[in-house]
């Protein structure tokens, strides 16, 4: 479970340069609220530090070029993408 501060920061950093990423990341945060483990949080922070196009390629499943150890969160984001 994230602290209020961690969650607030995460929410802001999920503001992206284009809409596709905004929608999927917001969908994830709306569903999960602050319910992320420390490990998930770390993975998500690593992924959202990527450029928008690279992040979207990963979320869309066209690229597996993501930081090491982020497999779990990549899978979660891909699931979030397909499950409306």
């Amino acid at each position, binding site marked *: 479970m994230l602290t*209020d*501060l961690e969650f*607030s*920061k995460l*929410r*802001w950093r999920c*503001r*992206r*340069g*284009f*809409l*596709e990423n*905004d*929608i*999927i990341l*917001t969908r994830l945060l709306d569903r999960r609220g602050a319910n992320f483990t420390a490990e998930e949080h770390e993975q998500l922070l690593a992924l959202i530090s990527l*450029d*928008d*196009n690279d992040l979207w390629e990963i979320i*869309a499943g066209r690229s597996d070029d993501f930081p090491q150890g982020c497999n779990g969160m990549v899978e979660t984001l891909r699931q979030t*993408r*397909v499950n*409306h």
Partner: protein
Amino acid sequence: MALSVHKYDAVVVGAGGAGMRCSLQLARAGLRVAVLSKVFPTRSHTVAAQGGIGASLGNMDEDNWHYHFYDTVKGSDWLGDQDAIEFMCREAPKVVYELEHMGMPFDRNPDGTIYQRPFGGHSAKYGEKPVPRACAAADRTGHAMLHTLYQQNVKSNTTFFVEWMALDIIRDAEGDVVGVTALEMETGEVSIFHAKCVLFATGGAGRIFAASTNAFINTGDGLGMAARAGIPLEDMEFWQFHPTGVHNAGVLLTEGCRGEGAILRNKDGERFMERYAPKLKDLAPRDFVSRCMDQEIKEGRGCGPNGDYIALDLTHLGGETIMKRLPSVHEIGKNFANVDVIKEPIPVVPTIHYQMGGIPTNIHGQVVVPRNGNPNTVVNGFYAIGECSCVSVHGANRLGTNSLLDLLVFGRAAGNHLIETALASKAHKPLPANAADYSLARIAKLDQSNSGEYPQDVANDLRRAMQTHAGVFRTQKSMDEGVVKVLAIAERAASLSLKDKSKVFNTARIEALEVANLMEAAKATMVSAAARKESRGAHTVDDYGDTPEHPLGRNDEVWMKHTLWYSEGNRLDYKPVQTKPLTVDTVPLAKRTF
């Protein structure tokens, strides 16, 4: 309490294409430049642009700036200022080649020249035939441009303040701009940026509408700050719509769908475009198709349980064609509409895409306002560039690829103007004693609130009202009702409540501050739209139809003028369109036919 004061020669608010092109020019000239951004620079909305940058390089076919100039004036439905349009089109090749020299990875022809692709509205020989004019870096033009500019800025010692939100403009007793206040998200502290000049490059306000292709960040902060500081907003009634944004998501479906044969259908399965445009059908121009879709919805023939969307049918194209020619459409269907476009139609609605109006400027990027009989008196120390500005090169309707061009040309021009006016040797004007009081009071009011609505609830109501009353299909009655509704929502927005009152990285507080900016942009749009009693470009009103005196509803005798909306008193003023270019003959008025 003493606030910290940061002192720079120039403060640029916004790190998108416009802001970073300008800051680069200034930093390279050795000026001390600060760039403030709500998000990391390369995450600015410019990153979304895929299509390209318009410039008459003539690499694929005969082309020159005169053709580009003509297309842009015509595209603007003669509301664009012809001096600014000439300036932009003449400078275009130069800014593209400069970007190339900075390392922008443009697509190439086999002979090494920059590859150019065709785009709607761009023609050779004054409308005779399409010409490839868009310079692109695959489908990542905006991304490549932002990265190139960011790297160059870092090299030139521009100082970036990332996750800082500018709050308000500081003007002195003479009305000159001497700085901005800004909130550092990490600490929650407000600081003053004291500068010899302030440049706004804050992007558009596309999030005032419910259906928007714009990222969530586009809340029109620059417009809000300018309006609160007594600066009028120009031509805010003109917004460009794209016909095929995914219903409830906004994500753009490329025009290529209809090019490949996709059909728009209403709830009865009817191919309704046959009724409106018997020849071109689904391939009629963007604004026309958008209005027909909206009419179907308004007349009760929309699809879905709420009858609020149109079905874009690709099923007859077959899986093989779809996967080969339109793979991204298949992907978007799956991800944002839960639809397999091979098997079923995808719900779409006309969706807001681009803001033509903004903060009024001249071709140097200087903000101009009416004063003592001169409609274009310079506000000392204040510049605006990019989508937040209105110079006005797009007039009533923008051509694709002309926005990225606008960022580069006027970002550079503003920088050059400051350098030419010897900014470095000028002294800072003193800050007024109460420089930050207004911003601090706005924040204190939010922090002390214990009743009132949450920002997002009010913002959502605003977006719905704007979609209904200032959408693609406008009637006088609906716009008049919209004014009443939006002003009522503005009252509610004046007393928002925060759940979270913490100081450090309080996203809720930031969002509440954004709502104040959304409100100004929305009021400007709604009031300006209801007042303009004609159809022109993107502002098409059913009441003002095609007549022999006023073809396509455009009334040049009365309405060929720019709107200026003032927040104080919710008041309107107008100023003439500049029909005289810098060196060539005026493009004479004509009916805009396609």
